[in-house]
């Protein structure tokens, strides 16, 4: 028996579990890593540059927050076989249904614009013109859905999700002090005291961890993948692993900028990448590639979240398992979102900063409703049966939702009135 065969024989159970996980994993890992989108990368880079490793503990606290919210969409999707938009229409009637759908479409479109801003900024570091970036991205995004199989789309998306982990080797290039990271980052404290500045950063980090499109995306993806009640346990593992990955990526970005850009004011992730290029060519390249990938992953998930939601409500064929001729409206909505959002970035003098600011405010109008509906739907015994929320789950998720609503509202208000918290 050669050494490889012996290793496989000794660890065959672990190997089989990993292979099975790779086959089953999908919506959870994808949605969580897509959460680290272009805006998220900027937030983490700025957090590290301003507070060093000091807020790593706070990111770790966000892991259960992200997991518990997204886990509910898994149960809801697998049991009801409905997307979140359709579930809201059915349970709460047309007023809340249209409000959620229109708000989601607007929020997603604006967020899509910010993803294109991130992607064009990242590739402009390598002297790629924005128009080229947008054309290539639009073509790749179209090719990903054209093959007519959800499974294939998911595995391609997982490759891009894996590329999001590029920040992890990136952090090792600079040899950060592990003892410093643990000493400064593991113990909960507020560097410089709990003032308005740090409060703004805490709110921004929460805002990037839970977004309305994530709820709609994962529930629809669970339905499109055809997951059943029996798959819930695996999909929970998928979601948990996704939460671990997303917090790991965020932590490593903070480690990078906290080590080499401490004290530098970061306005965007692209600016951080350019500064890092001057310190270490490979590190800057890693951040720029990661930023592009983050924008791309965010774009494919966000545009699909809208198309699925609109398709569900209008009763159109809305599955990645359909060919274009079988679901023309679904793919039409997907393509329209990509082309219009990409075009906005190319308009000279377009108010891109205003759009980025507006996204935060508009997202807050939808997030509380989407989260409250999620909890109410998970407590509906008629549809959820034995998969409804337990008292323990209700306690945890209600606490999480209340905190998210308060902090995200304060974040939106502070974005509208910057002097209010100064």
């Amino acid at each position, binding site marked *: 028996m050669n050494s490889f065969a012996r290793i496989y024989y000794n660890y065959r159970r672990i190997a089989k579990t990993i292979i099975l996980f790779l086959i089953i994993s999908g919506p959870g890992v994808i949605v969580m890593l897509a959460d680290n989108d272009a805006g998220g990368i900027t937030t983490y880079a700025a957090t590290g540059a301003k507070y060093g490793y000091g807020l790593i503990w706070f990111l770790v606290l966000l892991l259960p927050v992200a997991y518990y919210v997204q886990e509910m969409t898994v149960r809801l999707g697998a049991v009801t076989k409905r997307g979140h938009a359709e579930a809201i*229409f*059915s*349970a*709460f*009637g*047309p007023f*809340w*249904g249209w*409000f959620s759908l229109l708000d989601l479409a607007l929020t997603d479109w604006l967020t899509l614009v910010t993803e294109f801003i991130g992607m064009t900024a990242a590739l402009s570091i390598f002297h790629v013109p924005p128009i080229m970036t947008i054309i290539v991205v639009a073509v790749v995004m179209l090719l990903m859905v054209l093959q007519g199989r959800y499974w294939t789309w998911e595995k391609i998306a997982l490759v891009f999700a894996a590329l999001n982990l590029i920040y992890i080797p990136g952090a090792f290039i600079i040899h950060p002090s592990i003892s410093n990271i643990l000493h400064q980052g593991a113990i909960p404290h507020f560097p410089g005291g709990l003032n308005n500045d740090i409060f703004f950063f805490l709110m921004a980090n929460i805002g990037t961890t839970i977004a309305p499109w994530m709820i709609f995306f994962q529930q629809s993806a669970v339905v499109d993948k055809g997951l059943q009640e029996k798959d819930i346990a695996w999909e929970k593992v998928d979601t948990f692993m996704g939460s671990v990955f997303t917090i790991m990526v965020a932590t490593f970005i903070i480690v990078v900028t906290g080590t080499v850009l401490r004290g530098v004011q970061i306005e965007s992730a692209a600016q951080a990448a350019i500064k890092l290029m001057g310190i270490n060519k490979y590190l800057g390249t890693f951040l720029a590639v990661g930023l592009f990938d983050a924008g791309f992953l965010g774009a494919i998930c966000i545009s699909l979240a809208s198309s699925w939601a609109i398709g569900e*409500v*209008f*009763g159109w064929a809305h599955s990645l398992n359909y060919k274009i001729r079988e679901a023309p409206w679904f793919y039409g909505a997907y393509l329209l979102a990509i082309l219009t959002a990409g075009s906005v970035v190319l308009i000279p003098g377009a108010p891109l900063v205003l759009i980025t600011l507006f996204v935060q*405010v508009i997202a*807050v*109008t939808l997030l*509380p*409703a989407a989260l*409250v509906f999620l909890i*109410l*739907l998970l*407590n*509906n015994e*008629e549809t959820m049966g034995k998969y409804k929320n337990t008292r323990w789950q209700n306690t945890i998720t209600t606490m999480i939702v209340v905190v998210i*609503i308060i902090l995200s*509202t304060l974040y*939106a*208000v502070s974005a*509208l*009135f910057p002097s209010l918290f100064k």
Partner: protein
Amino acid sequence: MSKGMRVTLSQRIREFFLKRFRKIREINKRYEKSSIKMTPAVRISLLFLRIYLIFLVVVLVYKFVTLVR
């Protein structure tokens, strides 16, 4: 000829929008009745969401007015 074409085009546009409105009316009818049981918790939650939305609209309008001034 061109008048005929214009009539056809305007008719088509009208038909397109009528079809969409019909679809919206159909959706409204399909989901007319809320399927969730209206327990006190559900009622309170929906009331909170309405108040929250009104608050956000007031904040946005205030911001808009101060910007215009």
